[in-house]
């Protein structure tokens, strides 16, 4: 929405306006603390009760050359008084800590949007570094926006005149001056950030207090000067009753895995090798030792998956977590788990590629890799999380599939939902699925590859159990006995058996649900993190009078059993994907149905309007 320029003005005071929805982007150098600033704004807004969605966007370099476009780090947050699905298409407010941050983000800003710039950084040298020929603050290039020029560095130093900190440390507080101003502008309380600072810098109270002081100075500057004519508020959202917290996707995934461990009674083992954007799962699980979690930072991606397989063999919940390049290295290990039929959860937090690609940017282009990127016939269940909070449920589902069908399972997430945050209605523990697992105990009649009639799963018999000594391995097995077997008929049988086992999962997953008319002209079908943008676009299209249906896939291998019927009921199917049409390829092959791909491979998620415009053009324009 566009922020109103004027409201009811009390004498000498800024006008106050209530808005339903606002998008704010904090942007600065990689070292300016923009992720932290944005996160604080998000958490404070969450505690007020706003619905929210975030989109961090940062460079792969830890500290790219200061002042350059390559070094710009941004954090976008959208807060609303109603249910929202995306972090917003265009910011209403841009906080630009230097010329590069202004230049890199200006094109996204809404017309008449608010820009707050740190004028202290607009030196000729910094302007040149950012590629400006002149000073945009002095020409008319920003006339379409509401520009607020503030000497953030000067004001920060002035506020900290009495502080014992050196100048460098003082200057590092300037992001909190900006935060204080934005808190004032959107009528947020400072308390939760003050509490956070005092805990975070418990051992360096002088730093905590300097930041508190600077943040208050930013707030007071707005309150006592007439810098802003209007002050805004965003009321709490009318969310479903319950207890909420704000959560990132990677955090929800880590907690989901711990919950699955508890619900299954299996100790959790994570074998991992650091890789962006998956490392946070390792970091977070490493702090959950008191839940019996073992984390292992292995020497490489291969050891990470193999150690998890070793842990599963011993009766633990073996998990490994990586991104595309690491998943490529794990392929042989995953295939070993396919052959020995042990439970294993492989989390792929996708990023831009191929090769090293765009480590910090998002993409959904590992789908075909996880489906087919292994030698020979290698059926592996694949499921995808659709939002930050959904990573929790998806982790539990991955564990259910892995332990029920004795199989490796691939869980797809991506950089967008891994680093993005949203409010999460906290579930009751007793409502979580019961994942209890029984290890095989009876020696009488035991064979390592005997099978459950329904699921076709083999028994999980763990070392240490007397009388069940057996050997497993990557060589082809004879069914039931598990003996090495090279016979042609046996191999044919086993290849089909492994495929059938995974295919039968379709009997025990929910059918796909269609939102909107159950048949008709147009179905928008998505998977994974496109859910928010698709939902927002479809809802808007309907509000504009277009008839359109929507469905979203969590289970990609196997597909829900009714998917073919659903596709047949629609004349056209649109599949927006952050790849060149990978789901569409699978659907066409499986159902002989034409699927229209809408691709976006810019390292950024779809905006709602991009999908909305595609729906409009397919429907013959807005009604």
């Amino acid at each position, binding site marked *: 929405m566009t922020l109103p320029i004027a409201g009811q003005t009390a004498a000498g005071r800024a006008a106050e306006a209530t808005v339903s929805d606002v998008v704010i982007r904090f942007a600065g150098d990689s070292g300016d603390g923009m992720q932290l600033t944005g996160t604080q704004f998000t958490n404070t807004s969450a505690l007020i009760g706003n619905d929210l969605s975030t989109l961090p966007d940062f460079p792969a370099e830890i500290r790219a050359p200061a002042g350059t476009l390559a070094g710009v780090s941004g954090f976008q947050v959208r807060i609303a008084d109603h249910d929202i699905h995306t972090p917003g298409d265009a910011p209403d407010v841009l906080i630009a800590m230097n010329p590069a941050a202004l230049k890199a983000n200006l094109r996204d800003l809404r017309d008449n949007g608010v820009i707050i710039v740190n004028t202290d950084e607009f030196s000729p040298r910094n302007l040149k570094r950012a590629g400006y020929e002149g000073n945009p603050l002095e020409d008319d290039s920003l006339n379409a926006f509401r520009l607020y020029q503030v000497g953030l560095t000067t004001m920060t130093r002035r506020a900290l005149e009495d502080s014992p900190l050196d100048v460098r440390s003082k200057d590092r507080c300037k992001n909190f001056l900006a935060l204080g101003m934005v808190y004032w502008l959107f009528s947020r309380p400072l308390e939760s950030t003050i509490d956070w600072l005092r805990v975070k810098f418990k051992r360096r109270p002088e730093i905590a207090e300097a930041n508190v002081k600077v943040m208050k100075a930013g707030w007071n500057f707005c309150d006592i000067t007439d810098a802003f004519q209007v002050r805004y508020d965003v009321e709490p959202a009318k969310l479903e009753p319950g207890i909420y917290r704000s959560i990132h996707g990677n955090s929800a995934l880590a907690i989901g895995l711990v919950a699955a461990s508890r619900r299954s009674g299996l100790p959790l083992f994570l074998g991992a090798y650091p890789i962006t954007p998956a490392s946070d799962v390792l970091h977070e699980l490493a702090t959950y*030792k008191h839940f019996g979690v073992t984390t292992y930072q292995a020497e490489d991606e291969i050891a990470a998956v193999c150690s998890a397989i070793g842990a599963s063999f011993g009766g633990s919940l073996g998990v490994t977590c990586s991104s595309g390049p690491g998943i490529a290295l794990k392929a042989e290990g995953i295939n070993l788990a396919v052959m020995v039929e042990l439970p294993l959860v492989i989390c792929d937090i996708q990023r831009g590629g191929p090769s090293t690609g765009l480590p910090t940017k998002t993409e959904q282009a590992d789908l075909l890799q996880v489906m087919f990127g292994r030698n020979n016939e290698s059926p592996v269940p694949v499921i995808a999380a659709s939002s930050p909070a959904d990573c929790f449920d998806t982790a539990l589902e991955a564990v259910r599939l892995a332990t029920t069908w004795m199989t490796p399972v691939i869980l797809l997430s991506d950089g967008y939902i891994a680093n993005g945050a949203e409010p999460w209605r906290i579930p009751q523990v007793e409502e979580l699925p019961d994942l209890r697992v029984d290890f095989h105990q009876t020696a009488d009649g035991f064979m390592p590859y005997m099978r459950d009639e329904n699921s076709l799963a083999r028994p999980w018999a763990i*070392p240490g159990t*007397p*009388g069940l000594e057996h050997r497993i391995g990557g060589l082809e097995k004879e069914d039931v006995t598990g003996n090495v077997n090279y016979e042609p008929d046996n191999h044919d049988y086993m290849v089909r058996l492994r495929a059938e086992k995974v295919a039968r999962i379709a009997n025990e997953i929910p059918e796909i649900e269609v939102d909107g008319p159950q048949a008709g002209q147009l179905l928008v079908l998505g998977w994974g993190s496109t859910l928010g943008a698709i939902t927002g676009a479809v809802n808007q299209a309907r509000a504009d009078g277009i008839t359109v249906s929507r469905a979203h896939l969590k289970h990609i291998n196997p597909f829900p059993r009714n998917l073919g019927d659903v596709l047949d009921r629609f004349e056209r199917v649109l599949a927006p994907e952050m790849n060149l049409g990978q789901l569409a390829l699978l659907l066409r092959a499986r159902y002989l149905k034409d699927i229209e791909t809408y691709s976006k491979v810019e390292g950024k998620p779809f905006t709602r309007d991009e999908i909305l415009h595609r729906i409009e053009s397919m429907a013959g324009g807005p009604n």
Partner: protein
Amino acid sequence: MPTTEAPALTRKDFQSDQEVRWCPGCGDYAILAAVQQVFPELGIPREKFVIVSGIGCSSRFPYYMNTYGFHSIHGRAPAVATGLKMTRPDLDVWVVTGDGDALSIGGNHLIHTLRRNVNIKILLFNNRVYGLTKGQYSPTSELGKRTKSTPHGSVDFPFNPLNVAIGAGATFVARSVDVFVPHLKAVLKRAAAHRGSAFVEVMQNCNIYNDKAFGALTDKAGRQQNGLYLEHGQPLVFGDRKDKGLRFTGTDFEVVQLGNGMSADDCLVWDEKHANPSLAFQMASISTGDGLGDYPVPLGVLRAVDAPTYDAGVIDQIDQVSSGRPQTLEQLIHGTDTWTVDAGGNVDRGAN
């Protein structure tokens, strides 16, 4: 669980029902027999043994042992074994590997497992050739070796497996020979008793692709003439009449003829517990292992030192952290900052 005196295990208890499929005359048969004889003597219930292997002739080993076994993928056995041992410290985990599996494709896992001192036993069958892929040179093949992949002779400098292990910080490093049955069994027992990573190179003959790989050591004369049988606390004396010894000059080992005023007292007394690994490294370096040089081939335990194990460290840390931080799953899911929305849509900040 009540503990009852289990009947004593025998060699037969460790023989699986699988037909052994190594080539007739392969050195692996002797090693298999030695392991099947040693395991019953360790006082460990059979179900507690797990043998993990990679790929190669040696890595078929688990199929022939009636224990839990895992024939994994090429080079990765130490990684599988590490995950298993970290989560199941009650198990006795053995890795069986070869020179290609451990030192080529799996080199990374080998060194990191040894560096961490994971409490597992690693038996490296070194036949200095790729057997299962039918005769290519391996990372332990000698320079100039002619194989299918080096028809003009190898120009690829080999590893000394002992030095790889010592360099990686292994706390137990030993060597024996497939056909030296009593010696091999004694070394296996020492490895079994070691707490931490125990690395054992077993020099092994491949009679198909690298026959007499260690012939100068294993033939009748070579056994006594060229083997240096290390014993902790004993002087370094060798030869069929114990008439030769090794002196340490301060920088090098030197072969001396005993007699004529030179006695065992002039030879270095072997210290497998020497804190600095450089002595063991230097000892391992005196011979490439084939017994063809001026120096004898060191056999037995080169290094055996006490050090904390990785797996115990991990488990201790989990216990320590757990005892100080009781937390329920509910608390974990809730986190620290929550808000409540009531049925009327009102928001109560921070309520729980």
